[in-house]
Every structure is written in C-alpha cells, then in structure tokens.
C-alpha cells in the first residue's frame, strides 16, 4: 500500500508477543483508547490467529489496518493500525 508519508510516527506500541486470543485484541483496544484519533498504533504478536482477528477487529471497529506483515525468522506478526 503506497503511503504519502514515508515516516510513520507511532503513538503507541502494543507488545502482545507470547499472548493468546483474546489478549492481543484486548490490549490493542485499551491502547487505542489512550491515543487521539488518527494516531498510529503498532502491534507485535506471535499468535497465528491474530491476522484474521485484527482484520475482523478493524472492520468491526472502523480503525484502519494500515500494514500487516510477518517476519518468518522471528515468527512475529506486526500490525499498524490507525485510530478512527
């Protein structure tokens, strides 16, 4: 996805590595509450179910899933979410 701004300023990082469903979502929801609208939140997770969950969660909450990547070496999923 092309982005106008090359540098993305992240307002909060949620480290949900090692956590199982539903904690990555719960922690992200709490983190989102703490940042102003339009802010970016970075989430790190290791739960393989999180990809579908974050996609669904962004659909139901209206937040924007800007980026979604997986690093096979570390087995870490990374999500970049922009608050509605």
């Amino acid at each position, binding site marked *: 996805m092309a982005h106008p701004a090359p540098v993305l300023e992240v307002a909060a990082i949620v480290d949900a590595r090692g*956590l199982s*469903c*539903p*904690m990555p*979502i719960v922690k992200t*929801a*709490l983190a989102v509450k703490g940042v102003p609208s339009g802010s970016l939140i970075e989430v790190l997770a290791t*739960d393989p179910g999180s990809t579908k969950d974050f996609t669904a969660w962004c659909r139901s909450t209206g937040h924007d899933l800007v980026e979604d990547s997986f690093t096979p070496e570390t087995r870490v999923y990374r999500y970049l979410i922009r608050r509605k």
Partner: protein
Amino acid sequence: MTTEVRHVDPLAEAIADVEGASEGASDAVPEAFTDAFRAAQPETKPRDLVLICYSGDLEKTWASLILASTAAASGVKTRVFLTFWGLQTFVKDEKRITGQNAMQKMLALMQRPGISHRRLSKMDFFGMGPWMMGVLAKQYGVASPKELLEACQALGVEFMPCQMTMDMFGLKREDMIDGLGEPVGAATVIELLSNGAASLFI
C-alpha cells in the same frame, strides 16, 4: 429421448408452493419477498451483546469472559447477566461461606464461590484438572479468568447480577466483587434481547 435439464430455483418454488401457485411458477422471486430481504440487510452500526452467564464451571466461565472482553474491545456494548452458578463466580475470592441460613451456607461450603475457585464440569479430579489448565494457560500465554475479568472491567463491560439468584443463595452486595451493576431480573434481560441485542447463553 433426452430430457431437458431444467434449472430450478428451490426458494422461488417454495414461495410459489406456499402461495398455492406451484403450477406455472415463474422463476422470479416475488418482489415483496426480495424487498423484505433487502430491508433485512444490516447496516454497519454498533450493536449490543447480552451474554447470559449461567454456568459456574471453569471452562464456561473462561469462554464467557473471553467473548465478553473481545466484544467490548470491538466496540460492542456488552452486558453480562450473572445468574445461578454464573453469579457464584463474581463473589469475592476471599469469601468462604456465604448465605444467611444453614442450607445456603452448606451450598457455599460444597461449591466454593469466587473466580479463582472454579471447577471443571468434567475431569475436575478434586482440583487437579483446573490446576493443569492453569499451568497450560500460563505456558501458552492464555489469560486467566481473573485477568479477563479485569480486562472486561477496563473495557466497560456491564455486569448485571440476578436479584433472584442473590436472594436464593443469600448473597449480599458486600459479598460480591466491586464494579458490578445494580441487580436486575429477567425482564430487564428480555427487554434488551427483544430490542435486538445479540445473545449468548453460557
């Protein structure tokens, strides 16, 4: 002789049957029917969830709290109605004997209330099952019911204790954990459900 394959529309035929016009049924679904389907398309809007927490078993308590916290995290207005054994989970952990009369006290003794004292409905083995579940949960990063309850409260899940259950088990407001709503009855739950809240009975 070859028979021509006729493409059928089972829904249209079913409707035609109901209307008593099966012979010479047209392929088209009656307009009123398609309109009704169109009208039923849900708009994307925040919906409500009412979870009826009836069971006090560990595995069901776990499921209830996972779903309630996730619903609240997804922006769904979430209410949990605590009734019968589900209410026992929300008695303070340190309360050992609750109730006013001998039978209520005996019941509390037989099934210890509190979120940290839940038992499995099957293969509890005097607490061995729940202990193993706890070890596995920690190993796999699964939040405990207590942690999930804290998440629920942080996310604004509304817990509604059942007044009737409180009376029957002789539970007082001060026996219950902090942060619960006012005790309510079945009519409150039914009103929420009939207004279109999604429901779960666990």
